[in-house]
């Protein structure tokens, strides 16, 4: 008897599910009903994995302390985020994208092509990119030039001709460096960390050669491809942006180095250490005052057209720039954000209040 009830109930379900033959057809109507534009009640955020911890923290606090829904944050990398961001306006496109570098003019153009001409830029603070290894190994002190020589795809030899990077070990570059294989795990090209690392560290080291400096004036593309191309022979391991697994992998392999944002170093200070670059330690103060050579600004970008469509965007920005979030004692500092100076934060607050539109000069 029991079986009969089971059968009966199962068959009602059969009828429900199978009557319009294919289930996708039945489901197709569902989203149509909720589709009409401006239908989203939560902010949608994509972008950099470096900002992910900050954005999620603000999102959570914002959701708790206001009557708005908690924004949904997806980590896609700075490049990927800007691409999604610039794909168009409307419910299915994100409202905000986080970037661990400034937006590029090519990206602004792309946005404009898709009808997004008004973008609001918000700077939230600074970040240093660290080259870190396990505390089980000695700390390294390296110059930008040495770093370039270790990681570039092609380098110059004595006669100033290009040749593939010959270095296997750090010590081959400079005998003072450790006598171990070059093994650096770092982010893929979609990542802003990678962009910033390439532009600040690689290019910075590359420029120290006079010949390269001259090249910059004569042949910019060649200069860029020389300075920006990272080697692909296994010494540089693209380890994805799951930076926490990266930290664990560094712990497991004391000979390897990792490249990531300062916040991950900050969270794991007891197990990993940042190398000094050009003899400057990777420390909060040095990054904030700019003496640490590989530091960058962090931004997020907002579609002006979405303000008023998706509820809470302005309030979210206000929360992000507030004293308790990105101020010098704010909760983001606990997460490893390097805060802007009081005055600078004030300026950005003012800019955002007036909904100043981004223009790249």
């Amino acid at each position, binding site marked *: 008897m029991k*079986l*009969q009830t*089971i*059968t009966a109930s*199962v*068959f009602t*379900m*059969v009828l*429900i*599910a*199978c009557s319009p033959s294919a*289930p*996708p057809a039945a*489901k*197709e109507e*569902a*989203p149509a009903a*909720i589709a009409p534009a401006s239908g989203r009640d*939560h902010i949608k955020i994509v972008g950099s994995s470096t900002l*992910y*911890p900050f*954005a*999620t*923290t603000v*999102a*959570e*606090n914002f*959701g*708790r*302390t*206001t*009557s708005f*829904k*908690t924004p*949904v*944050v*997806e*980590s896609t990398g700075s490049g990927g985020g800007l691409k999604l961001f610039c794909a168009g306006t409307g419910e*299915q496109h994100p409202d905000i994208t986080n970037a661990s570098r400034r937006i590029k003019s090519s990206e602004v153009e792309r946005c404009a092509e898709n009808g997004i001409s008004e973008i609001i830029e918000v700077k939230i603070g600074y970040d240093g990119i660290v080259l870190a290894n396990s*505390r089980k190994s000695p700390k390294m002190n390296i110059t930008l030039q040495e770093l370039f020589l270790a990681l570039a795809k092609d380098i110059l030899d004595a006669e100033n001709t290009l040749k593939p990077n010959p270095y296997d070990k750090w010590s081959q570059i400079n005998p003072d460096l450790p006598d171990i294989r070059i093994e650096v795990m770092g982010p893929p090209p979609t990542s802003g960390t990678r962009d910033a690392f390439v532009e600040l560290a690689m290019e910075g080291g590359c420029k120290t050669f006079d010949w390269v400096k001259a090249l910059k004036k004569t042949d910019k593309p060649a200069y860029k491809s020389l300075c920006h191309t990272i080697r692909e022979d296994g010494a540089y391991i693209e380890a994805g942006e*799951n*930076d*926490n*697994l990266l*930290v664990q992998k560094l712990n497991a392999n004391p000979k390897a180095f990792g490249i990531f944002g300062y*916040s*991950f170093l900050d*969270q*794991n*200070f*007891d197990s990993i250490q940042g190398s000094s670059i050009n003899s400057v330690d990777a420390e909060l103060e040095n990054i904030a005052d700019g003496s640490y050579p590989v530091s960058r600004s962090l931004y997020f970008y907002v579609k002006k057209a979405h303000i008023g469509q998706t509820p809470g965007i302005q309030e979210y920005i206000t929360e992000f720039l507030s004293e308790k979030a990105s101020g010098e*004692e704010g*909760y983001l500092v*606990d*997460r*490893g954000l390097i805060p802007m100076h009081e005055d600078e934060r004030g300026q950005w607050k003012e800019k955002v209040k007036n909904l100043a539109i981004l223009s790249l000069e």
Partner: protein
Amino acid sequence: MPEHSLTSSAQLKARHGRETRFRWMGRIAILLSLGFLVFMFVAIGMRGSSAFSQTRILLQINFDEQILDPQAKRDPAQLALANYKPLITKALKQLFPEVTKRRDQRRLGRLLSNGAAFELADMAAKDPQLIGTTRDIWLTASADVDMLIKGKVDLGVEENLRRLKDTELSWIRKLQDNGHIKKKFNSAFFTKGDSREPEMSGIFGAMVGSFFSLLVCFVIAFPMGVLTAIYLEEFAKKSFITNIIEVNINNLAAVPSIVFGLLGLSIFLGVMNLPRSTPLVGGLVLALMTLPTIIIASRAALRSVPNTLREAALGLGASKVQTTFHHTVPAAMPGMLTGAVIGMAGALGETAPLLMIGMVAFIVDVPQGITDIATSLPVQIFLWADSPEKGFVERTSAAILVLLAFLIAMNLTAVILRKKFEKKW
């Protein structure tokens, strides 16, 4: 003659030796496999079990009306949004009158979770009567304190490398001496959504996401799977088409799950424009994936129903359809359900296809329906494995334990279902 028997007995001995060795190889293989299972469970259990308790700090909180509700309206919605941080700061000042510097007071406040103020907000919103009273409340400690109390912080490292400095340690020791700090059962872990604070994060949101996905998956895959099985077993004549269907089903069973994710990405999201990151799409993808399992199990169940049953029904004048739906299918139902439960258990643990359709995001709110953005239990595990905060390591393991508990429960259900309704024809 004796010579011969001697060699043959030696030979016999060798043969028996081989026999024993062979048997032991089988035993060792099984022991190794099961030993590994145990090793993994123990290792994860040891890492994860500590997440089921949570360090809390006892504070005497004065729900000051002046701060929270100056107009004395007692409106729960307003109370939920008030600022409760000052209450905690005040309570700490009482407990540690000797800490006077502003910077130190701030550090003192960091012994508690960022979420502690929200806990107070929730309490006050639920019970506005609290306003104006003073209560003893156990508030969640910060992840750093939690890790310390759970013994996961190496105090041997230099002070300036530790997240907790010596002053903080002395404060914690004082709290410990007064009995103001305690590990309690971590119910928030089972009732909350994701959070940036390891100590405030829970798996409930992910569980609900998984539930909705499985619901969609079941509602689609089970009827379709059963009906397909019925057609193939009871009605279809051997033909070119049925042959193709059969080959297809067998092949689909072996298609890597990630390919189904790509199918979902390009068809459900790309062509049909279904909402990204939702249990609706997740469930659809999982349904296509589980379909072969359910079809194969249902066919086996139908095949095990003896022909005499069908013949009896047909002989009494029932039509083929009546025979099938009134007699054969009910008899095969336990087997079909068992197959469905096993299929669902597989779907519950599936991660890769969900990554493809964007069910990886930071989602705090618990999803309310199948079109809300959600994640799922295994994806939450994957996400937490990526978080920089140390506290998430134990959470990841604990979430794995919960997931495994669900899977074991589902598999047990399948076994019981099979045992209970199994008929020997």
